[in-house]
């Protein structure tokens, strides 16, 4: 009976939803947002937005909400989608979001079977964290050789999949992997602060903020 998972308290629920940085050796860094509602705004030390941008945008400029129907972009300040001014709009893969006058992001859903999405800055601006892209992780995060991966790593021969479990995150890899130094097969739990290595890829999850 003691093994039964305890109901998540508000505190550790919040902890679970906190964005983390994913550092992949030889590939890049990614900001992974787990919450179904992410805020976008200017990077200021006291500003608690999920995706902080070093750009001429407001403190809280827009929100992206993941619903059963898809991702909705809600404007708080001036937002254009594909060149059209919007207040609220459903996002589709390859849509371009312009926050303010110059900061432009592209929204991708590269994996057809996954609702997770990816945001890339295409205007030369930067995220507050030194990462290449932000990933809005719904169910899974696919790191693999196919272009239909959230993170495309051409040198791999098979995908590494990060997925959500009741208590947090886990990784799936057909074969052996080292998670936090321990060897596991096929799948194993992951938490921010750990490293994972297979024969083809090595990465680390880092708690941020």
């Amino acid at each position, binding site marked *: 009976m003691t093994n039964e998972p305890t109901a998540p308290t508000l505190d550790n629920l919040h902890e679970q939803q906190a964005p983390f940085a994913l550092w992949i050796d*030889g590939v890049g860094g990614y900001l992974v947002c787990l919450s179904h509602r992410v805020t976008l705004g200017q990077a200021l030390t006291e500003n608690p937005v999920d995706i902080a941008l070093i750009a001429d945008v407001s403190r809280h400029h827009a929100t992206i909400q993941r619903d059963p129907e898809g991702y909705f972009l809600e404007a708080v300040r001036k937002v254009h989608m594909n060149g059209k001014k919007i207040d609220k709009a459903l996002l589709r893969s390859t849509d371009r979001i312009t926050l303010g006058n110059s900061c432009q992001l592209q929204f991708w859903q590269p994996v057809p079977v996954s609702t997770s999405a990816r945001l890339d800055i*295409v205007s030369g601006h930067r995220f507050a964290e*030194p990462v290449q892209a932000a990933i809005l992780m719904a169910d899974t995060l696919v790191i693999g050789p196919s*272009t239909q991966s959230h993170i495309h790593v051409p040198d791999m021969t098979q995908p590494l999949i990060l997925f959500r479990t009741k208590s947090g995150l886990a990784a799936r890899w057909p074969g052996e992997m080292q998670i936090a130094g321990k060897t596991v097969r096929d799948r194993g739990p992951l938490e921010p602060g750990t490293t994972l290595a297979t024969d083809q890829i090595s990465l680390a999850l*880092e708690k941020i903020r």
Partner: protein
Amino acid sequence: MKFTYHSGHQPLPGYTIKRGIGLGGFGEVYFAVTDGGKEVALKWIRANQDIEMRGVQQCLNLKHPNLVHLYDVRTDDQGHHWLVMEYVAGEPLSTIFSRHPNGVASELAGQWFHGLAQAIHCLHEHGIVHRDLKPGNIFLENGLIKVGDYGLCKLIADSQKAGMTKDVGTVHYMAPEISTGNYNRQIDVYAAGILLYEMLTGHVPFEGESAGEILMKHLTVQPDLTRVPKEFVPILQKALVKNPAHRYATIQEMAKDVAAVVNPNQPMQPLPMKSPASAPTHSVADYPMAISVTSTMIFQQRWSELSGILLWSVLAAAILTLGWALIFDAYDKLPQTFFLVLAASWSVLIPSKLWLPEGKDLQEPSKADHDSWTRRLLHMTLGFAVGIFALYLDGYEMPLPWKPTADFEVLHPWQANPETQQVLSRSWVGRMYGSENTSMPIIACYLSYFGLMFLILRWWKTTVPDRSKRLSIMAVLGVGFWSYILLFLLPSVHQREVGFASLVMASVVCQVTCPWKEKVPVRKKKMRLATA
């Protein structure tokens, strides 16, 4: 990639490693953030602990927008040397070249070359020869060229002498006089010439099986400049000349000539994005966009590649059929065989070049093996079409019920023999049966022969750039073998000859016309050492 340090490690106080970036010839490169929040690249110089750091120190305070800045040289507790550098978020040209296997537009190449030349000029002005210019050392960040790995090059040369292994790829950019130990600034001009050639064509001018072979070509073979836009030919001739005394004396001279051709003062033209209509109208357009390759661009690129291939295939088919007719004395079958060879090879070439899975790298279409059957079925459908075309070439009319039973007509001048005349003069149903003893309707014979031939063999394999040989005799024999097995399907001797010969020749045409990229073989360490 196996890195010694992981995210969170602090080999140098004040620098926290976030991730590994790459493994170079002389150490590991990491992305790190300082305690103050500055992003840097850390290079752990492992090549030799006793190296003189003078070369690096000479470059430490160079400032140029096109150079990757060096911040500091540090030594950790264990006595390891670390080079602290500017972190470049962009991609190396090697990655960009692999996405553009046919090169980039002249204007873009001109802009990139301009940046490259400025960086080399700055180094030369300070008495530094780069010595190791290659696409892996040159980055593109927000449209700006950044040259890295300078100052370490002396070190590389020394480590080579010390017997250290080294990336074979570098020999592609090595000037001929390096063989005599001559390392002056002319070698950077030569390497810049090779890089310009590669920007324009997607290939280096000298490729080969081994480092020795490539070096030999640098020494003796004249570069093939037919693939280069003609306005660049004189520039490349002068930059790639074997004798350094006849080469451009300075990189500035070469840059001036390139500038005269492309005018790099024009504003940066970003490559077209997925849908131009979606581009915002505000100041975002002024930002130099990161280069991204969209599917439309890939399609356009393939289309332009394909049109060239199709033209060549006409020539190849004509030569082959002519040769075949000469050898076998089969002039009467010449035109029909020619058209059949062309139809068969086009039905292989067109889908192979245009139909690749979305976003697949052009250079790696062979990875798309998982959809083998979809491809086979597509080819079979095209095989049916070829069969019907063959039927038409043989002088049969299509069995269209609304067509009146035509009077006898000679469809093709080469069909004026009594046998076919007889066939043609029958009713439209009868017309579809052969004049010889066969129980199958002729249309079924043709469809099954050509359909099966296209279904059984993986024709697209002969068109991929990374096939093992340009012209594989085994592939041709394979076609011959299966064709021979299936020949019983065709009713008459005449048709069998044409059917057999045309498919075998089509297989040759496909292989000859499709571009082939030689693989650089992974060579044994011993051999690398021998040539290094």
